[in-house]
């Protein structure tokens, strides 16, 4: 069976697309799937850093598209999972180095070998976004519980729907239940009122993310915190398991006082 192409996008920058790509991709690989995470952000590549594979890049997807290497040579194996690969992009080029047809062609080749191809889309709705969207079978839109990020997600969902791509599923990232309770942050319901899109995961704010990104170790590899668990749940939902969405509970005052429970 041909693999599935999943594009992770958001419109707004800094909401957690790359973190989501790295963690969902790694979690799928830990479930035994053959996975490639594909950096769609030509010129501003980050996925290699978050995956901790930066210094192993020899060739990238632009080298392949322009005929300087075979696709195999551009793929970097991540030994932390049985079958996990990174397809890096070029740092010294811009979005015009690849067009949507070439993205489709690259992904069609990857589909033959992999179960999942996860594309990390650049921010914005320009060519880089259209490149990342062109081959997509499924689109994950990442948003934060905050008005401007939800507005951009709405715009992106409209664009995805009008190109008849999809299904579109929503990841609410960096939710802080206690602040929602104090009405300082949009609730899941507030977000659904605007977006009315199926939610595939709610990822709580988690300090572990920052240090894991800096170290180049996605939290799903050994984290026990709430974000790691949420990303693993998203991966299980993607492979079709029925994992109920449990809204994150506010941590109680004594949990905050005595540190995290894990």
């Amino acid at each position: 069976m041909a693999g599935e192409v999943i594009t992770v996008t958001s419109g707004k920058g800094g909401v957690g697309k790359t973190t989501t790509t790295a963690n969902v991709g790694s979690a799928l690989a830990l479930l035994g799937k053959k996975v490639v995470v594909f950096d769609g952000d030509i010129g501003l590549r980050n996925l290699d850093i978050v995956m901790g594979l930066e210094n192993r890049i020899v060739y990238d997807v632009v080298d392949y598209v322009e005929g300087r290497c075979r696709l195999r040579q551009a793929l970097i194996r991540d030994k932390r999972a049985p079958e996990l690969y990174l397809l890096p992009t070029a740092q010294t080029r811009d979005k015009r180095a690849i067009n949507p047809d070439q993205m489709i062609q690259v992904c069609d080749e990857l589909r033959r070998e992999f179960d999942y191809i996860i594309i990390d889309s650049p921010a914005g709705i320009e060519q880089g976004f259209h490149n990342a969207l062109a081959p997509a079978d499924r689109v994950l839109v990442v948003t934060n519980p905050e008005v401007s990020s939800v507005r951009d997600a709405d715009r992106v969902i409209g664009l995805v729907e009008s190109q008849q791509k999809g299904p579109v599923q929503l990841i609410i990232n960096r939710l802080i239940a206690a602040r929602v309770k104090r009405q300082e942050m949009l609730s899941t319901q507030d977000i659904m009122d605007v977006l009315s899109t199926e939610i595939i995961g709610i990822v709580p704010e988690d300090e572990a993310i920052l240090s894991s990104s800096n170290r180049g170790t996605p939290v799903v590899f050994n984290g026990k915190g709430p974000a790691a668990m949420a990303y693993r749940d998203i991966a299980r939902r993607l492979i079709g398991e029925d994992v109920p969405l449990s809204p994150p509970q506010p941590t109680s005052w004594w949990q905050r006082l005595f540190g995290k429970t894990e």
Partner: protein
Amino acid sequence: MIAIKGFKQGLLVIFSDSSNQPWLTRLRELEAKLSANPGFFKGGSVAFDVKATPLSEDDLRRSIELLQSYEVTLWAVLTGDEATRARVRALGLADRLAPPAPAPAPIPHPTREATPFIAATPSPATEPPAHISPIEASDAEGTDGLLVRHRVRSGQVLRHPGHVVVIGDVNPGAQLIAGGDIIVWGRLEGSAHAGALGDDHAVICALEMSPSFIRIADVVRMPRPSKRRSRGKAGSAQMARVEDQEIVFVAWNSADGIFE
């Protein structure tokens, strides 16, 4: 005579055949419409139907320039004249409203709705403004109104010379522009401009009225201080209309005899 009709794909300007006036005179007639109602046309894209009138390359270029000066994009010219059609193509414009179909369309899937959106930023020529479904036969005569049965999202623009009816919510950042009335069977949070061709008797109705911007003809109403999403209490259905050069909101339950 110039007629403007609305299609799901956008606006069609029809230059009727009977006139023998030079093209420049007819463009002036169009310019009068553009300058009288800039709010209606601005940012939109139009197609021309010039019937059998032959147009030179210069005529076509002038048309494009005139529209550009009002921030309107010309994307297609329908013509009965073969030489004109060749010039239209040479300029990179479409010569029909539907993009060439690769194969005869299968019976449309009943659950899949057409996407009637006029893109906020039209793509340059040869195709209908981005992401628009091919024209449907039932649309061939144009429509008095535009009915949309889904949520209108941020960045999406619905523009029609007649009425615009949305069954669904209109999200913040979405835009409705109608020559006639605007009816939203849902929550109106985006911007709405009714009577955009100058009719200040036009009204805007919504089940829940919290627009970011509202305008009827030339009368503007700035947003009310936002009660930040007072959802749940969901105010009653309201109608906005012009009274003494001001937009007023009337709750629907007291709207008996509103039109006298």
